């Protein structure tokens, strides 16, 4: 049910774009209005979410320490997994964001009779890493459609991505990788009973949507072979705010574009915002130095306590009997 409804939603989105362009000829809507609207919503949405997180303060320094603390000078500190300086935090965060350090620790718990065994399992780490890096490279590759001349960086990334030099047009490795990794991420959700149990429609939907985007992009490049020059012209005009409708581009392009727009609109209001959240996670982005520098809680308030005077008042006789020093005799 959760899976089918998500899949149906993505298929419906694709059909809407197809009908809209092929049947109703709403190219202006799907090619101009919706992309502008979606991009605006993406930017505004992300800002709203990040600002909302930012408005909640960090009252306590709750670093999760994954290594030896800064201690006596002859004890070797783990300066990355338990940073006490900003530099340490930067390295820790970079490892987390670029290489998914914590996910790399993953183990698999198995019980064999009376024994528990912890096997190492890096498949999730690998699948996630391949997906995210492919995604990044694909996004960078797409910059060629909105930049003229195409920057050298983009050109070299393209060259690297297509280094196999297979087929015409050249096969991009990331196209393979992103489909494979998304398929893996989907299959593990379905096939591992525990993961399936915790999965919700909102976990399947983005996977299908991304598969839809990757699939339509691949079809466009390798099967339907849309006119790449028209696409670039269209895209250049779009980013220059001088939009022009092109009738040269096939419906598959509009499906691809509409799915991307859907993702852009969906992104800020969904779990996909983990992309922004990871930068702000207080267990990871704080140095464990709260005994070295006092951390300030902006809403720290006075609380009712039980003072020593009250304590002595209650126990004075008993304290005197055992010879404890007293403030008031």
């Amino acid at each position, binding site marked *: 049910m959760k899976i089918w409804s998500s899949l149906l939603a993505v298929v419906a989105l694709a059909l809407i774009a197809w009908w809209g362009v092929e049947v109703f000829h709403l190219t202006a809507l799907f090619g101009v209005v919706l992309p502008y609207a979606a991009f605006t919503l993406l930017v505004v949405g992300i800002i709203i979410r990040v600002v909302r997180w930012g408005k*909640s303060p960090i009252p*306590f320094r709750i670093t999760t320490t994954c290594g030896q603390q800064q201690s006596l000078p*002859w004890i070797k500190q783990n300066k990355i997994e338990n940073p006490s300086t900003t530099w340490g935090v930067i390295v820790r965060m970079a490892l987390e964001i670029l290489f998914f350090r914590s996910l790399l620790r993953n183990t698999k718990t198995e019980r064999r*009779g009376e024994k*528990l065994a912890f096997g190492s399992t890096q498949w999730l780490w690998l699948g996630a890493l391949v997906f995210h890096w492919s995604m990044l490279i694909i996004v960078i590759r797409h910059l060629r459609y909105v930049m003229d001349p195409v920057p050298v960086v983009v050109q070299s990334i393209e060259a690297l991505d297509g280094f196999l030099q297979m087929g015409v047009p050249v096969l991009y490795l990331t196209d393979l990788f992103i489909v494979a990794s998304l398929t893996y991420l989907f299959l593990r959700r379905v096939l591992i009973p525990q993961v399936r149990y915790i999965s919700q429609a909102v976990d399947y939907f983005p996977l299908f949507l991304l598969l839809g985007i990757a699939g339509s992009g691949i079809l466009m490049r390798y099967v339907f072979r849309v006119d790449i020059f028209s696409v670039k012209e269209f895209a250049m005009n779009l980013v220059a705010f001088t939009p022009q409708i092109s009738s040269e581009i096939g419906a598959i392009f509009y499906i691809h574009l509409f799915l991307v727009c859907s993702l852009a609109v969906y992104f800020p209001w969904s779990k996909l915002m983990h992309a922004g959240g990871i930068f702000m996670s207080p267990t*990871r982005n704080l140095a464990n130095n709260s005994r*070295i520098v006092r951390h300030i809680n902006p809403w720290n308030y006075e*609380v009712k306590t039980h003072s020593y005077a009250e304590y002595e008042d209650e126990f004075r006789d008993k304290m005197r009997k055992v010879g404890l020093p007293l403030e008031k005799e």
Partner: protein
Amino acid sequence: MAKLPAKEEMLQYKYNVPATDWMNTPVDFKPGTFCYGAKSKNLQIVGLPNARDWSPSDADWKLPENWQEIILEGMAERLSKYRSFRLFMDVCVRCGACADKCHFYMGSGDPKNMPVLRAELLRSVYKRYFTTSGKLFGHLVGARDLTEDVLKEWWYYFFQCTECRRCSVFCPYGIDQAEITIMGRELLNLLGLNIEWIAGPVANCYIKGNHVGMEPQGIVSNVEFMCEDIETITGKVIKPSFNRKGAEILFVVPSGDLFAEPGIYTCMGYLMLFEQLGLDYTLSTYASEGGNFGFFTSNEMAKRLNAKIYAEAKRLGVKWILGGECGHMWRVINQYMETWHGPADFLEEPVSPITGTKFTNAKSTKMVHITEFTADLIYHNKIKLDPSRNDHLRVTFHDSCNPTRAMGLMEEPRYIIKHVCNHFYEMPEETIREKTLCCGSGSGLNAGENMELRLRGGFPRANAVKHVRDNHGVNVLANVCAVDRAALPSLMDYWVSGVDVMGVHELLGNALVMDGEIERTLDLRLQPLPGKGVDSDV
């Protein structure tokens, strides 16, 4: 109290999932897996709301009329006060990396003990009332109404989490279930839904200064008893001071160390060490608790209890504070104390009077961990040790959750152990240091009525101990935590017989060579030391 199942029965669980969706699987209050409800009088002592006597197994929890409003307002307030809470509600992708990292899940197979699902219990309500998508799409986006059943489910599972932070180590976004449990318990406490095992110690600590409820004369006489034993063992007469103004150092221990076996043996180790050093320190009967069960109730309650430490240091005019072996105590001291009650400008940067070492890592909070202090002594050869007195012991070390994952105290205790024992063996790598497995009884869950839960939660730890017992003949589980010392003995008795539980400073006390002491024939437990003295029949 529920009858304890036999081992075979206990192990009959599987990691299967129910046929019904978790939202439609009602919570089953299984005897032996939950604690008694907080008593009215203990909530009243500290002024917590909705004080009344109630039982979790009753259908009627005697909630106030507007309880939903109270919870939702409480959530809104906490979402605006804690970035952690808001962020952790928003960014989980349910990848499942945390699922099999929780000791309660590993030992029970209950899917709601997967940290992701335990968080989802709260997240589903957050989505329903605080997100647009949840208001519009409900179940489809994982949102659900806040009903009495949901509240009971929260209670059951937020008191089945020891706030150990193991899941947080593995989470790609650092989502910390401890933080979510802390918020969940704060909300439950707005309705008077604490457990008695936490509420009782909190009330005790507030009035009497310590969780176990010892009055000043009780503390003095307990320490005197320990000193009598020390005299029997070493021939040395020790007279520690209490509430003494002008001492250089205030020494604060978890009250378990002043109260009962095996904690008192650890305390004897501290006392012997300080005597040998001639340390100018004092104990306080007012600040007689390093631990903080308020931390398992609410931030405010934790702060109210913790206030005594700095207040007493100020009143007595000490230079700095030394803290004993305790787990969550050190999370609170490292991550909360000075934020609450600082700046600690009435104290001086801690310096060891014996070695002259400056504890620069504690220069602001001015509180030093006893293993930092002792490791420094050993490094500078300031104490004489005879590790052969511990030769009959084959030791492994249990990293306590909080000093490890909320501080990073890993090498200091190991350094001491390696100098006071000749036989030390590590448990498997996946079960120690930042990946350490909880005793299953932390965060105020070390009651008697939930023993089955504790044994299940402690099963993964026990399993790792069993590994080193079977492979290396390990017979001592060393640790730096008072809850460990209270909880691990029953865990060992049940799962891994023949393993004693000892604080690191108990081992140190055995090995410590004191000036003018008699020949040691007894260990700190008054048991004959094998191979030492005439009584030995080896």
